[in-house]
Each structure stands twice: as structure tokens, then as C-alpha cells.
């Protein structure tokens, strides 16, 4: 689900990255996804008038990224080292399919080395033993260094992950700094309770760092997921072994080096690039790891949990897939609702000027479970919603306007300013989406917009809107992972709540209404981890995020993320001649 091909896919059978890379090389080359530094002012093609917009940039040469790849080895115990096996894998420029760098490929033996280093750093090193204020200062310095190196980091993230520079530089890198400062502020405010016992006892609760945390992050938001995971773990005084996604190993290695520059002691953060079935599995089943945090697909999340159960019962937090409803009530401002629902489904990024959607992001943006895409619009971020439930009284108007909006959507080279939707991640995904579209048509849904590929080359798909979708249709139940909006009709609050909850997932929901009572009722009734009312995809460091049901276990961000990385110890002693109890 989220990040289906994630990085972290332990289930994945393929230990060899090369074939995939090769295929994407070929097909990306067709796209000529390379683009234009500085947002070349090429013509913007409206899908309706120029379905082949994607071809526009086909012949342009990709821009040379303004950054050198400095770190390609594993970071273990404060040093960049080769993999024990000596093996490397290629990380590929998604614009062209060209190899950016060969990266040391960590496997079980490297995980063992990393865990040993983390173990030493935790059991004997200064990190958990220094004051929280000192840890706070290290994280603050790290945030400053991130800002000082923002251009480089953003370029690296764009190069490796195919995200627009505008997005990485303008939004994601500053957010990483924000997260780090947020957690830095928590470090010296981790309070246990002093507990009233029913008797003459003095009881204190100590919140101790949990130890060595194993963290597995996906490729869709490498830096932000780094921040969500590493920030609270370090603020609490833990040591970490982080496995990055094999698609996007570069930015984490770079910022990890900055973290050491900021004063992080050796061994506290170890970064192992590698694959799920080898490095990921080794981390999950390691007996020396005290806690796991995973973001990725529900399928892989199950394996992570299982490996934890089979090894040392380490606690696990999981941020997994979703199938989030977006509910438009009859009193909604339809124009606003259409735009919001459109964004909630199609956009991974909505700024003042809607722009670029990269391949990976486009994939995620159009998938439900990909809660991890952000939009910064006056401090707001953005996430997806794939089942659009619309009240019968505004249904026809809504469908008509959604159609118009979809037809107006700008599809094209994601590096070009003004483009709203780029290509899907690869041919496999592209074909799968088109199969879902066909399934929608076959099952009797009304295709009101799109429904085919855009252009004649590459993996571009027309923004597609289905109306008259029924709950039992495949397109209303399964993740399409593509730019396909499914609009369903409802008549009462009770009905829509029941249908919205009829999903194995429970990540997020949108509710669009001016009625206070309906908003309050639905906010409580929807079995999801986040309800956005008259907004969507608002993310903030302080707001807890995570899923109900099979969307995951635990919460990240906010004060809640600290709990994932703390043990709770009760200290009890008799109190003699107590003045009070």
C-alpha cells in the first residue's frame, strides 16, 4: 500500500535491483523525463487540449544536479564503511534511469555490525548519559546544519527520488528542520508521573530510553520519514539502526553525516542501505534490537510484526496503507469541495501555484494509502483520499465539476513548473491502473473523464473520474495507486459512516460540511487515525498520525511519538511516617 514497492518490502522476492532499474531506464528514457532546471517556461498543456503534453520535454537534456554524491557507504559506528560482502547496488536517477551511484549493499552481517555499534553506544556510550538539554542542543545544531545545506540535501533528494526540487527545497527540507527542532524541545520535557498509591508508598515513574531502535523507512518521503523516526528516537536518548529504502539511500546518508557534525556520538545512528528480504529482515528479527518502527505496505508490515514476534517480542509501530474516505455533505460549498476532493485524490502537492508532481509522488498522490505526501499551503500539508462520497443532493453538480476539474488538470513533465501530474512510477503500475480503469468500466461505473493513457509514450495516465461507483466494485475496494477518482453517492450521515468504515483500513478521512453537529458526529464515528474537517492533509510535527485497523499500530509525531521510544519503569518504596498520602 503505501509505498507498495517500498523500499522496505521484505516480502519482495527480488534481491537484485538491476533488472528493475534496467526496465525503468528504458522506459524513462522514452519519457525523456529529464527536465529543465529552473522550470523552463515551456508551454503548459491542458490535458483537454493537449493530451500528449508529456511528450513536450522528451528531447530535453536532463539537468546536471547541483550536488555531488559524497556518501555511498554504510554508516556504522560513526564511519562510512563498505558492506561486509563488498557488494553494492545501483541507485538510479528516476528521470533517466541512469545510475547515480553504486551504494554499499548492507545485509544481515552489516545489520549485525550496526546493531553491535548501536548496542555499545546505548549500553556504554555518552548519548543516553548526557543531559537531555545536551541532546536537545545536538538536535538543534542538526536542524541548523540542515538549513545550511538545504540546497545540497534537496538536490540529492530530488535526484534520487525524482521529487521536484521546488518541493524538496521549498517544503520537505524545511519540514525536516522543523521536526528536529520540535523533538529537540521535547528532549528535556519527558516527564514521568509521581503516583498516588493506596498505602504508604512513594511511587515514581521513570521514562527511560527503550534502547536500540530499528527503523525502516520507505522511498516516498525519505527525508521526512527519517525525521519522523530518528527525531523522537534520538530525543529520548536511544541508539538507532536505520534501514533506508533501496530506491533512495542517498539523502539519509548525507544528513546522518550532518548529525555527526552536530555532535552525535558514534554508534548512536547507524544507517544501512539495503533490501527488505536481507537487511530489513535481519533488523526485524535481531535479538539485540529493542524496538521496531516501520513505514510501508500493510503486507510488509505484517512480516515485520511477525519477525518481531518470532524473535525477541520487540514492540513494533507500523504506519501502513489506507483507503481513506472523503465525505462531501449536501451543505458543502460544492466548488470548494470539488477542489478539495480533487486535491485529496490527485495531488501530492498543492501550493499557491499548483505544480509538478513527480513520478513517485504522482503514484502516491493518487493512492489512498499514501498518507505520506505533503502539501504546504499556508502551513498545510496534503494527503490522499480515494473514495469520494458525495451527498445525493449535490452529487450531479459535484460529478460535473469534478469532471471539468479533471479535464483541466495539467499533465506533463514533472520538472516543469505548472504541471500538476507526472507519469506513474513504472510500466507495471501503469498497466495495473489501466486494468483497474477497465474493471471500473466493466463493472458498470460511469467513466466521466479520462480512462486512458496520456500521450503516446511513457507512463502518463489521464486524470480519470468514475461516477456511479458502488461499494462492491473493485475500484471502490482496492487500491488503484493511480489518478483515478471514484465518486460514490450517499443520502444520510448514518449510511455514509457505515460505508466509510467498511474497509480493512483506517488511516484518515475527510469531512466536508458546515454543519457542526454532523462534523462532530462523523469525527467520532469514523474509525480512522485522522479526520480532517473542511480541510485535508494538514500535517504538523505536533499532530499525532497513524492508523486504525490494518493501517497500522501506534502513532508518530507529537508527544505520542515519544512513547514509542520510551520504557516505563515504576519505582516503589515505602514511605515511613508520611506527612500525607
Amino acid at each position, binding site marked *: 500500500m503505501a509505498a507498495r514497492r517500498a523500499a522496505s518490502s521484505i516480502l519482495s522476492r527480488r534481491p537484485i535491483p538491476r533488472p528493475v532499474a534496467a526496465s525503468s531506464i528504458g522506459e524513462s528514457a522514452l519519457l525523456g523525463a529529464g527536465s529543465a532546471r529552473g522550470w523552463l517556461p515551456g508551454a503548459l498543456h491542458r490535458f483537454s487540449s493537449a493530451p500528449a503534453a508529456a511528450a513536450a520535454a522528451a528531447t530535453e537534456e536532463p539537468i546536471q544536479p547541483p550536488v555531488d554524491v559524497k556518501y555511498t557507504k554504510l554508516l556504522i559506528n560513526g564511519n562510512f564503511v563498505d558492506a561486509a560482502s563488498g557488494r553494492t547496488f545501483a541507485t538510479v536517477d528516476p528521470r533517466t534511469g541512469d545510475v547515480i551511484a553504486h551504494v554499499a549493499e548492507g545485509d544481515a552481517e552489516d545489520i549485525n555490525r550496526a546493531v553491535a555499534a548501536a548496542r555499545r553506544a546505548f549500553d556504554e556510550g555518552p548519548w543516553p548519559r548526557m543531559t537531555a538539554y545536551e541532546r536537545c*542542543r545536538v538536535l538543534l545544531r542538526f536542524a541548523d546544519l540542515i538549513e545550511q545545506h538545504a540546497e545540497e540535501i534537496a538536490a540529492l533528494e530530488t535526484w534520487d527520488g525524482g521529487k521536484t526540487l521546488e518541493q524538496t527545497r521549498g517544503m520537505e527540507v524545511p519540514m525536516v528542520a*522543523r521536526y528536529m527542532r*520540535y523533538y529537540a*524541545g521535547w528532549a528535556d520535557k519527558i516527564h514521568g508521573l509521581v503516583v498516588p498509591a493506596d498505602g504508604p508508598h*512513594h511511587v515514581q515513574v521513570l521514562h527511560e530510553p527503550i534502547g536500540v531502535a530499528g527503523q525502516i523507512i520507505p522511498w516516498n518521503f525519505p527525508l521526512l520519514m527519517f525525521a519522523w523516526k530518528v527525531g523522537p528516537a534520538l530525543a529520548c536518548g536511544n541508539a538507532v539502526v536505520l534501514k533506508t529504502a533501496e530506491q533512495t539511500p542517498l539523502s539519509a546518508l548525507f544528513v546522518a553525516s550532518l548529525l555527526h557534525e552536530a555532535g552525535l556520538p558514534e554508534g548512536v545512528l547507524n544507517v544501512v542501505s539495503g533490501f527488505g528480504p536481507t537487511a530489513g529482515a535481519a533488523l526485524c528479527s535481531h535479538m539485540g534490537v529493542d524496538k521496531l518502527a516501520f513505514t510501508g505496505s500493510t503486507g510488509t508490515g505484517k512480516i515485520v510484526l511477525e519477525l518481531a514476534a518470532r524473535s525477541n517480542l520487540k514492540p513494533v509501530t507500523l504506519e501502513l496503507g489506507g483507503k481513506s474516505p472523503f465525505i462531501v455533505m449536501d451543505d458543502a460549498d460544492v466548488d470548494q469541495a470539488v477542489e478539495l476532493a480533487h486535491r485529496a485524490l490527485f495531488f501530492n502537492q498543492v501550493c499557491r501555484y499548483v505544480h509538478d508532481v513527480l513520478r513517485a509522488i504522482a503514484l502516491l498522490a493518487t493512492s489512498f494509502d499514501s498518507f505520506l505526501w505533503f502539501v504546504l499551503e499556508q502551513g498545510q500539508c496534503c494527503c490522499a483520499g480515494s473514495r469520494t462520497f458525495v451527498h445525493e443532493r449535490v452529487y450531479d453538480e459535484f460529478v460535473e465539476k469534478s469532471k471539468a476539474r479533471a479535464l483541466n488538470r495539467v499533465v506533463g513533465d514533472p520538472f516543469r513548473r505548472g504541471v500538476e501530474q507526472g507519469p506513474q512510477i513504472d510500466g507495471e503500475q501503469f498497466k495495473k491502473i489501466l486494468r483497474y480503469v477497465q474493471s471500473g468500466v466493466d463493472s458498470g461505473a460511469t467513466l466521466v473523464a479520462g480512462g486512458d493513457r496520456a500521450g503516446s509514450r511513457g507512463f502518463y495516465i489521464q486524470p480519470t473520474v468514475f461516477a456511479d461507483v458502488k461499494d462492491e466494485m473493485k475500484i471502490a475496494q482496492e487500491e488503484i495507486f493511480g489518478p483515478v477518482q471514484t465518486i460514490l453517492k450517499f443520502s444520510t450521515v448514518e449510511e455514509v459512516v457505515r460505508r466509510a468504515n467498511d474497509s480493512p483500513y483506517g488511516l484518515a478521512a475527510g469531512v466536508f460540511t458546515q454543519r*457542526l453537529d454532523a462534523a*462532530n458526529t462523523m469525527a*467520532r464515528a469514523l474509525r480512522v487515525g485522522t479526520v480532517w474537517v473542511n480541510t485535508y492533509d494538514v500535517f504538523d510535527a505536533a499532530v499525532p498520525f497513524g492508523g486504525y485497523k490494518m493501517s497500522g499500530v501506534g502513532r508518530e509525531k507529537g508527544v505520542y511519538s515519544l512513547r514509542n521510544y520510551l520504557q516505563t519503569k515504576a519505582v516503589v518504596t515505602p514511605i*515511613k511516617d508520611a506527612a500525607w498520602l
Partner: protein
Amino acid sequence: MAAAVANGDKGFEVPKLEIKFTKLFINGRFVDAVSGKTFETRDPRTGEVTARIAEGDKADVDLAVKAAREAFDHGPWPRMSGFQRGRILHKFADLVEQHTEELAALDTVDAGKLFAMGKAIDIPGGANLLRYYAGAADKIHGETLKMARPCHGYTLKEPVGVVGHIVPWNYPTTMFFFKVSPALAAGCTMVVKPAEQTPLSALFYAHLAKEAGVPDGVLNVVPGFGPTAGAAISSHMDIDKVSFTGSTEVGRLVMEAAAKSNLKPVSLELGGKSPVIVFDDADLDMAVSLVHMATYTNKGEICVAGSRIYVQEGIYDAFVKKASEMAKKSVVGDPFNPRVHQGPQIDKDQYEKVLKYIDIGTREGATLVTGGKPCGENGYYIEPTIFTNEEMSIAQEEIFGPVMALMKFKTVEEAIQKANSTRYGLAAGIVTKNIDIANTVSRSIRAGAIWINCYLGFDPDAPFGGYKMSGFGKDMGMDALEKYLHTKAVVTPLYNTPWL
């Protein structure tokens, strides 16, 4: 008998000091007092005038409140996110740190505080407090509630509004940041009145706050005197909260003025007569050092000074001997001299008051073990002094000087009873290795801070404030934010809710 005096020691460098800020800071600008009046701030090392400072009174407080009101009601400060406020506070902290040397020197010439301590503790401590609250600014949480009816309820923590801070002279920097940091983090605007003895660093901080990006009108500093400027703040109808640190007597006036004006909530951090209880099982040398530090830190000009020392009878005699030896070794002299342990008292009044108490102690029959006299030819230096005896007014009243009162006790119960026999309840020290004694005494003493086998256990995360007539309300820690926040409960009915 007398402590070592380093007055003649010239083997150290006094930093060249330029007094940059002497006017009132109102609405982002340094301005003269409306009256045009100024007052002198003096160097306690010599009694000579350091600078002439604009003297704020009611008219100036009115202007400052007007600016703060405007900044709160219409300005960006409470309207920006806590994180944004935190970023500005971080910048403020960095600027404070960059000026450590200069600020420490200002506090030394203004308050006679040890320059080395200022550089190592007071000024960095101010920056630390700012950073602590910078990190707290985006962590002010309301709660959603568990209602007894089908209702949705939640609380909002809102900034209280315009705050008046009245700070004392003994820790001009520390007290300034005790008050200002959490109030800024909470989103309040404020008028600060520093003590008339020590206005210099507060004005410098106002300048740095502006440089850091604190918007105009958010932080106003009005030096002046209690009966004029202080009273104007306490009784102002447009100030929403007053936070005061100072004497119990003045605290009473502040509260009374608040009651007579707009019933503004008040927090008071007042006097103390804090006990340190040393049990027989204590390590003697450690206990003596701890008590020495507790009593003589900042020449005894500290509200939590360990001014009543109760020592269990088994080690009492040995303790008195060692404490006396240690006091005699204490070096009194120019606070810029790094070899000096104790500088001059703040001013002539305090100097004379301390000497008067020493005289009373002697006349009431307490035994003067060491010290008891002024030292040096000019300035307000007093020898570290130790009295022993049971009943004496010097063991009841706050002396605010380098005077230790040593007393004997037999049992834990007696120690608790004696420690609590005071109208104050600010802090207490316990020196023991026994876990049960430590825990029992900790709960039994009616004081806001208990330091076990340590003293002055201050920390940004540890709330501080008194019981009884030592005041109410907490500085520091997340508790301090509460002083600057209102709690608003919001309730609305719920219909067809699946759970309550």
C-alpha cells in the same frame, strides 16, 4: 578570625565596560521618561555611580502597557505559531550567549555578583531558559474532555494577555528570564520592571529581544522604583497578570494592589528562611561544603539561602568547627577577581541591614563563631558570618546576607518540626544517606523545593516556588507556563455519537 580579604589584590583585569542602554524600552524604542527624570545606579564595589537611568513612573508604565496591549490585541506575537515564537526565542538565546561576557560584567557592576559565576552560570542559564521555553512554545496542549453528558468538550490554553513582571536585584539576569521566557513562549506581551539597583542587563536584554525578532511592544522594560513604577503595574487596570519576585512585604502590597484594581491574578516568589538539615549519617566534609554553598552563594543574597542550618547532635561539634574553618577561608573582594568567592552586598541599605542583624544576633545571646564584621575600606563587603544558638531572631527573619545560623537537633521528628516552624516555605536541604529519612522529610517539609544531598537544585524543567508566605505560583518548568495561560473550556452537544 576574619575571612581572607582580597580587596588589595590587583592581579586581575576588570573588563572595559560601556553602558549602552540607560533609557526606558517601550514599544521597541529606547525613550526618556515622560517626566524626564533619571536615577543613579551604583557600583556596590565602591558605592560610586555607574550610570544615570531614565526613571519610569506611572505615566511611563501607562505607555508601556498601551504598547503591550496593542501588541497583544492586534499584533503578530500571539497570532504566530508557537513554533515561530520558539524560533525567535532560540535566536534571542543565541544573542544572549554571544554577549555573555558583556552581560556578566553588567550584572557584576550593578549587583556586585561574581563575574566568573555570571559568565559560567547566570548568563548561560538565561540562554538555557530561553531555549527550554522555545522548545515548550509549540507544546502547550489543551485537552479533549470526558463529559458526563453527550457533549464534546475541550480546553484551550490561551495566553493570558498583558503581563507585568517585577523582578528583583539579586539575580537580575536569572529572574528576568524566569519571568520573561515562559510568558513569551505562551504568547503574552509584557512590561518588565527591573529593580532600581540593577536595571542595566534588563535593558540590554530588551535590545537583544528586538534584534532577535520579538515584535515591538511585546517586551517593554521600565526601570524605576516600587512605590511609583511598581505600584503602577500592580494596580493597572489593563494588565492581566502580575508576576513578582521580591520580599514578602512588597509581595503583599502587589497582591493588595491587584485586589483593589482589576483582580488580576498574581504570582509571588517571596522571601524564605530555608532550612538545611544535616543528619548524623552525612559525609561531614560534603555536608559542610553543601551548607557553605547554601548559605554564602551570591553573598547570601538569594531567596533560597540555607539560612537555618540544623545539624544532628552526633556531628554537630565537628560540623561547627569545619564550617567555621571553611567560612574563614572564603575570599571576600572584588567580584571581578577570579580568586574571590564573595563580592559586596548590593547597596548601602542592605549592607547596613545585614550588619544590624549581626548586631541583634550578638545582643540576643547567639554565639558568634566567625565573621560578623565589614571588610575592606570601601564598598559593601561583609565577612562570612556564623552564629550558633537555639532561639534567635536571626533564625526567624530573612537577613539576605552572608550569615549562617547553626542549630542542633536530636531526632527526625524534631528536625521536621523545627524546619517547619517558620512563616516561610521556599526550599529545604536534606543531607543524609538514609532513603527513609530522605523520603519522609521530603514529604514533611512544607516547602516548594527539596534538595536532597545537593542545594540550589534549580533546573529549567524543575518548577520553583514557595509554600506559605514564600508565595504562590511556579517559575520554571512546564508549570510556569500555566501562570501565563488561561484555560477555556469549550462545550457543544453531540448527536448520534458512537461513543462517549
